[in-house]
């Protein structure tokens, strides 16, 4: 049982940041599974008054406030037009609508959870995070940073022309994924992201170049095999390492195939 002594709604980010410097205080995000933890929180910090609950779309980018819910991601027309539904695909099997009405982007990204669909899809996009003190940091860099007492303010997704495909495998439709996979082509080489390994999502390094134009089935297979070889997988209650590596190859190949099929897009 989690106990909380105080609850505050800071009016400014500075105020929230100050409050969050005390190790016994915590930012609530969507709360949800936070309550499964034991122990005691001195002050729960609700960022609800900071106007971080909207998705702003401009010519160049999407600015996604930390308090934006997964359901907002799912239903946002512009974001899903840009990603050809990949963002919707990444969140739509997470528990249920009520859960997604509460879970926040900030909470999902800040936690850097291994199972995170959200982290996987945003890593495949040109995404940066804005930290209140740390400034704007590429998401790929952020996930490797050790957790500190900063505050995640928003996500910035640049509208780099390209395409992205999201696939995940689940034992049961609304369960945690056994593997997540997002592959994007944002000009240059495709970027492949694998998550729920069960470790945290990672951009797969050192993949072979794919020929310009149509990708042959052989080239896709070779690429997918290389991805499976490059991604460390592990075992947990949902699946074993060998199966995850197998899935890594299968989902990568499928995502690439779908990606090749998206024509004249963005």
């Amino acid at each position: 049982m989690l106990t909380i002594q105080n609850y505050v709604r800071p009016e400014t980010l500075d105020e929230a940041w100050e409050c969050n410097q005390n190790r016994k205080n915590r930012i609530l995000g969507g709360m949800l599974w936070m309550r499964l933890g034991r122990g005691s929180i001195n002050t729960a910090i609700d960022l609800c008054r900071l106007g971080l609950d909207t998705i702003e779309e401009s010519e160049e980018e999407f600015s996604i406030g930390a308090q934006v819910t997964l359901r907002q991601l799912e239903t946002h027309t512009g974001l899903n037009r840009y990603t050809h539904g990949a963002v919707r695909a990444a969140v739509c099997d997470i528990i249920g609508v009520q859960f997604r009405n509460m879970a926040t982007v900030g909470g999902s990204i800040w936690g850097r959870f291994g199972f995170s669909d959200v982290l996987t899809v945003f890593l495949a996009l040109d995404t940066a995070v804005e930290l209140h003190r740390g400034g704007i940091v590429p998401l790929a860099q952020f996930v490797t940073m050790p957790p500190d007492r900063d505050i995640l303010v928003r996500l910035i997704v640049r509208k780099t022309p390209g395409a992205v495909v999201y696939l995940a495998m689940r034992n049961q439709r609304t369960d945690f994924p056994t593997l997540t996979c997002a592959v994007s082509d944002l000009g240059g080489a495709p970027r492949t992201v694998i998550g729920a390994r069960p470790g945290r999502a990672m951009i797969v390094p050192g993949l072979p170049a794919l020929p310009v134009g149509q990708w042959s089935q052989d080239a896709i297979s070779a690429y997918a095999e290389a991805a499976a070889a490059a991604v460390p997988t592990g075992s947990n209650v949902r699946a074993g390492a060998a199966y995850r590596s197998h899935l890594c190859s299968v989902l990568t190949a499928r995502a690439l195939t779908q990606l090749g099929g998206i024509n004249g897009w963005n």
Partner: protein
Amino acid sequence: MDVKQLKTVGRSFPKKDAMQLLLGKPVYTEDITPEDALVVRILRSPHANAIITKIQTETAKKVPGVEAIFTWEDVPSTRFAIAGQTFPEPSPYDRLILDRHVRFAGDAVAIVAAETEKAAERAMRLIRVEYEVLDAVLDFRSAKDNSVLVHPEEDWFPPCEVGGDPKRNLVASETDADGDVDAVLSACDIVIDRTYHTKAFQQAMMEPFIVYTDLDRYGRLHVVSSTQIVFHTRRILSRALGIPKSRIRVEKPRIGGGFGAKQSAVCEVYPAFVTIKTGRPARLIYTRTEVQTAGSPRHEMEIRVRLGASSDGTIRALDLYTLSNTGAYGEHGPTTVGLSGHKSIPLYTGSLEAYRFSYDVVYTNHQSAGAYRGYGATQGIFAVESAVNELAERLGLDPTVLRDRCMVREGMVMPAYYGELTSACALDRCMEHCRQLFDWEHRYPVRDMGNGKVRAAGVAMAMQGSCISNVDVGSATVRLSEDGTYNLLIGAADMGTGCDTILAQMVAECMDCSLDDVAVFGADTDASPYDSGSYASSTTYITGKAVEKACGDLKKTICGIAAEMLGCTQDEVVFDGSSVRSAADGRSVTLTDIAYRTQAGGTVAPAATASHSSPISPPPFMVGMAEIELDRMTGEVKVLDYTAVVDCGTPVNPALARIQTEGGIVQGIGHTLYENVTYNDRGRPIESSFMQYKIPTRLDIGALNVEFEASCEPTGPFGAKSIGEIVINTPAPAIAHAIYRATSVWHRELPITPEAIAMTNTDAQK
């Protein structure tokens, strides 16, 4: 009997409580019991097998708001069983309210009672327990004759002789046979010899276990519990607490699902003990974690099937050995196992020359198992139906045609089913109907859909019982009110199944009145006539018959009173549903007149109580067919279509029978594909919440298609048999069959996960 002539039975009506439930009215235990009762919480063992060497509660007792903390030193030393079964129970008396010896990770160590949840939580953290951790029996295959004993105590007591021996970790053991199975097997052209494994699946009813207790206005122990078994609970509490049954009253309000979980008195003893000791109201609500880890799930079973057949597919012999894991305590252990053979083997009475069925039920240091819809039949049918499918595929025969040849039919005597005669059996019609409805001819062949996906189909048959023959007792009291309506009082427990409604439909049919004119009450040990409770698929068949009898008696009583009012003899009057008239001169008195008459100078109660029991347990039958789409690369299985045709005798309320069937099928799909129960190497359960134990959502199922083939059971009320349990039995073998069709691999262990499918080398086994 022609069901079409009936007015109320055989028609769909909404449940009598439907609008209350759908509009969220306060009708469950937590809603109707006082909030200021003591909060009861249970401190649980982290160890699978240990002796408590020291337990210190003094610090915890000082937490403000803590009323009492009890340990093994405080409780009576009489062993008891929590299985909801008729006395003398086949389950051993192997429990204490709190025992110094804890036998599974989750076993009760201390009872904490406090004014608030927070105080109880704090106190639990402050109780200091020292354990002597013992080796644990964590694999049921090595439990029998293991040097580690789960129940070494000397006061272990079996009320019935069922072949148990705690010095061998055995709860029960038996062999039953008909014919010379070894001789027939050796004469068979083909013998399929396979072993199947099913897990300790969770009922996962939405309402957790919950019990409220207080002392009533007479100082008696008053228990409000979400239970299927009010009378058994009274008896269990009486023994466990050492107080007379006359000092206990047990009632159940609406129940948020049971599926057998609440056929054991899982947690009634704890708040009852608190109330007895403190004199104060107490309430215990299990967390979902407690439901998952200290509940009463299915018995894990491993079943070896040896099936002998001729090369033309005639099934000649079945030899089953079932090893059942009852966990740390023996509830329902000796009985569930019996169904694994007795409700699978008889399906092939049509061609079977000999059978043998033997079993061992063992203790382990796992969570104690209990009763779950299907009650052993589900496990046995997975094994036998899979073996039959393996036979058909080996011989290249259509498995439905093979079954046509071998299945039990009406009029046959079933040696493996206690020699009972099938007086109503539409299994053959179910198969034909299901074949047509499902379009088996076109869906059975495997179809490649491209992109690594294939579609395939599988089939299975099932049976169950309609009661425990010669044991279950159902009773009903039917009473005339002064406005000419009726009260129906029962001791059976509607846990959402709709039995209150279907029993009222029977009253309406018998008394020729509207369903709205029947008010139902149940269940309360102080007010209801005795009923074993709602389990073993017995309520429609047994309590239904009691209702029919009581109505017959009441009609006679009413006619007697009316005859006196009309100044004629009873055989000169006719009952027409709203009045009783003299056949000779047409003079009549209304039911209202009659009822008022009984209230003014009446000497005869316008009420009747009847009990019923049955020497037989007529099986319902069913055929289920599954179509799946299987992704050969990822191993993902989608159930596209599940079609079932059921023979439950007369469906008393077809809408409710259909929902029962659909709900059972979906539970079965969950068990087959992803619901799992595992332990870590120290014996701690892994799937301890809904985060880990995944039950199907509405995104996990495809089309469900359910129809009925009615038969007419002469011993059942209006020809009815049962529906509640049989419906869970076909998905596992049918889906496993479809998976074989799609992959050429037989999966003999549940659940069949995508990983198991994708990672099985198809060449390894053929």
